[in-house]
């Protein structure tokens, strides 16, 4: 994920994100992607609207557009009453949704989500996936990592990585067929128990 | 946060008004072997001057040495017998040159005062048109006027504090940050052992550092160790203990390594540089700062090291410094062990 986001360079091989080369077009890549990590890349000591404005500004959105999108975003998330609340005071689930919405504020082609649902309650986790669905419907490519096997089922395609290799890459349907099981957990277990390296 | 805004203000005021390298009201003694009207006029001038204040008239060279040893005076003017202010005579100015910069400055002031009095007197007597009287400056403890004589004790005061206080506080706070402290607290190990275990390595380290500094200054910088090496090391260990307990105290009031470092730097290092007498003579500071300097452990340590190492004095001369440091150790250790929590907040 770091290589795809232009944060580190592969030792060898070729990779393109949004049509740009990961070796020498990282700045262009960064313009066309959104990124959200497990730790929620928001500023706890800024208000909700200030966070939106900050990230809108970072991605170079015009002032009026930031204002319009802030209103729209808060309405969709039902956070209009919390506009002036400090992000640090929000419950984890809300922060997570806000963080995701800000990651796609600038209409990126692709959004990268690094274990976005760690540690949240099951309802919040599902509500969050509905936001992801929604983004995908609008044409944003979503690239997500997770430890929850049921979340693998929500994806169009999944890859299972073991010891730095892609051991499987297909739709959840096909993977389950190939491993003769009815859940992704078994597929993962069958592949991952071969893992040898300790790191 | 506030500290970042207040720092420049405090520093500017301190340096601008309070802390200066200028000398004022320095205690001096005079050994007048001739007692003529001329020497009396010169003495009057010296007394009237704002730089000096007469501590005592003395009657023998032995007494002069004694005053220096006890640290009562910083400068002594010695007039030879039957002094008439002639060009083949000389007035002797002796200074305690443990701080060479200060010594040079004081000698300069005294020289110019004596010279100007001689000039005005000689105009009256009309003996010689332009007298050139150069007083001989005798640098008592530091004949070569080496800066090292001054900075070696200062560096020792700084290094020991840095290693002991900073490293201890950061070391303990790091355990809080990584969560290992949580496990240690839940173990049957007594908190006092956690504290001791954190202190011992840095005490050893500072011991090695003291030896290194002493060896370097003796053989590389040629600064003599005039007093007892054992006493010097004993005082250093005592001072290290003060620093360690300060570090422990800091660790009980902070929860992040960053905060521990900032407090160690601002609350501990700054006073050492400013108020210990290492760079700026304490005698010239306003009363408030002179009083404040008494709670800076480094002041007592540096003074004791100067006495033992440079002046070669014995344990009686530094008894006060040792007592103060010992009281500090007991007080700080008690407070911080009491504050050291067996639980979390």
């Amino acid at each position, binding site marked *: 994920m770091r290589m795809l986001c232009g944060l580190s360079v592969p030792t060898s091989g070729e990779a393109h994100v949004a049509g740009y080369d990961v070796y020498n077009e990282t700045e262009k890549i960064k313009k066309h992607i959104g990124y959200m990590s497990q730790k929620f890349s928001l500023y706890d000591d800024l208000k909700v609207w200030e966070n939106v404005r900050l990230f809108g500004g970072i991605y170079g959105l015009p002032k009026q557009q930031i204002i319009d999108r802030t209103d729209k975003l808060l309405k969709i998330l039902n956070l209009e009453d919390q506009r002036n609340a400090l992000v640090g005071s929000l419950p984890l689930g809300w922060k997570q949704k806000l963080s995701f919405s800000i990651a796609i504020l600038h209409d990126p082609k692709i959004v990268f989500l690094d274990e976005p649902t760690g540690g*949240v309650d*099951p309802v919040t986790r*599902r509500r969050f996936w509905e936001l992801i669905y929604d983004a995908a*419907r609008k044409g944003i490519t979503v690239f997500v990592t997770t430890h929850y096997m049921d979340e693998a089922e*929500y994806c169009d395609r999944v890859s299972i990585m073991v010891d730095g290799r892609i051991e499987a890459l297909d739709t959840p349907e096909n993977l389950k067929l190939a491993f003769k099981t009815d859940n992704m957990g078994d597929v993962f277990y069958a592949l991952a128990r071969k893992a040898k390296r300790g790191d | 946060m506030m500290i970042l805004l207040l720092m420049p203000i405090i520093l500017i005021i301190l340096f601008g008004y309070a802390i200066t390298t200028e000398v004022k009201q320095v205690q001096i003694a005079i050994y007048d072997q001739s007692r003529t009207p001329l020497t009396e006029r010169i003495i009057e001038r010296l007394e009237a001057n704002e730089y000096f204040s007469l501590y005592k008239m003395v009657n023998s060279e032995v007494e002069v040495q004694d005053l220096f040893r006890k640290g009562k005076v910083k400068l002594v003017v010695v007039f030879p017998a039957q002094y008439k202010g002639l060009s083949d005579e000389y007035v002797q100015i002796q200074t305690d040159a443990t701080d060479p910069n200060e010594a040079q400055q004081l000698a300069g002031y005294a020289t110019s005062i004596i010279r100007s009095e001689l000039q005005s007197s000689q105009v009256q007597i009309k003996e010689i048109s332009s007298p050139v009287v150069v007083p001989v400056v005798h640098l008592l403890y530091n004949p070569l006027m080496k800066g090292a004589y001054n900075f070696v004790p200062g560096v020792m005061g700084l290094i020991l504090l840095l290693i002991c206080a900073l490293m201890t506080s950061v070391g303990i706070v790091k355990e809080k940050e990584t969560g*290992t402290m949580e496990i240690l607290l839940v*173990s049957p190990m007594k908190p006092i052992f956690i504290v001791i275990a954190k202190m011992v390595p840095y005490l050893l380290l500072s011991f090695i550092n003291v030896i290194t500094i002493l060896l370097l200054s003796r053989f590389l910088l040629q600064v003599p160790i005039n007093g007892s090496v054992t006493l010097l090391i004993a005082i250093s260990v005592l001072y290290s203990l003060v620093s360690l307990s300060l570090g422990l105290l800091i660790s009980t009031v902070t929860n992040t390594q960053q905060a521990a470092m900032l407090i160690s730097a601002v609350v501990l290092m700054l006073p050492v540089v400013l108020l210990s007498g290492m760079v700026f003579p304490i005698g010239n500071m306003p009363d408030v700062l002179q009083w404040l300097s008494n709670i800076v452990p480094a002041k007592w340590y540096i003074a004791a090291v100067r006495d033992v190492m440079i002046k070669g004095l014995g344990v009686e001369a530094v008894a006060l410094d040792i007592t103060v440091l010992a009281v500090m150790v007991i007080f700080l250790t008690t407070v911080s062990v009491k504050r050291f929590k*067996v639980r979390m907040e």
Partner: protein
Amino acid sequence: MNDIQLSHINKSYGKIEAVKDINLSVSQGEMFGLIGPDGAGKTTIFRILTTLLIPDTGKASVCGYDTVRDYKIIRNMVGYMPGRFSLYQDLSIEENLNFFATVFNTTVTENYDLIKDIYVQIEPFKKRRAGKLSGGMKQKLALCCALVHRPRVLFLDEPTTGVDPVSRNEFWDMLGKLKSQGITIFVSTPYMDEASRCDRIALIQNGSILSVDTPANISASFSRILWTVRANDMYKLLADLRAWPLTYSCFAFGDKHHLVLKEATDKKNLYGYLQMKEHENVLIDTAKPGIEDCFMALLGDNVK
């Protein structure tokens, strides 16, 4: 006898009430799970039980000793693995284990039989620094360190968070073995699917306990019928099911949606509705509710 007893425990940090009126008891040799999301108050309960925090009100005891008054006795009897893997990153596996053995006045060999099964898995890497280990290996090392003095009660705060599913599975197998040796285990996790591994569980949210029982009883307490529905367009299916007036709640569960209705109805009615919404390949079934369904139902009841 109860190895762990909490009665009317309250603890606040400033204005935030971390835990509210907690009542729990765990008997000797039991494996008890505290299940809830981040920020539910799990760590606070752990810290109160491991004598690190003093509750504002209420009484807590471990092995019959009061956590405030007798904290020194308790510290001799319990093993604790805090939420973050609290190991010395710059010490090797071997050094960490020896260090904690010394801290607890014992040696690694004295209780080696207890940790042997776990330790052999990480032994090939024993010279490696703890900071360079994978999540699964750190977890095993931390468990060894917590067990090195053969504690009577083992406290494990989110031991499986951030660890891959295979390691998580292995970890629960290890806990099973420890339980069979008579060690009382008090463990927390945000993963609902791990609940079934415990003898009894408490579901906790926002500092309050929603339910305490065996996993089977909690599943059985689910009073409504749980429908599972799938179709070609799962996203539209979710929206349409939520819009249906009869729907109480509907959430995605892997490749199906779990649907709870406000009132009993038959399959035909539901099928008819989805036909009307033009869904293709509709599959409707009922399922046995899991802990996650129960937790969500309890959350829903609390919120509404």
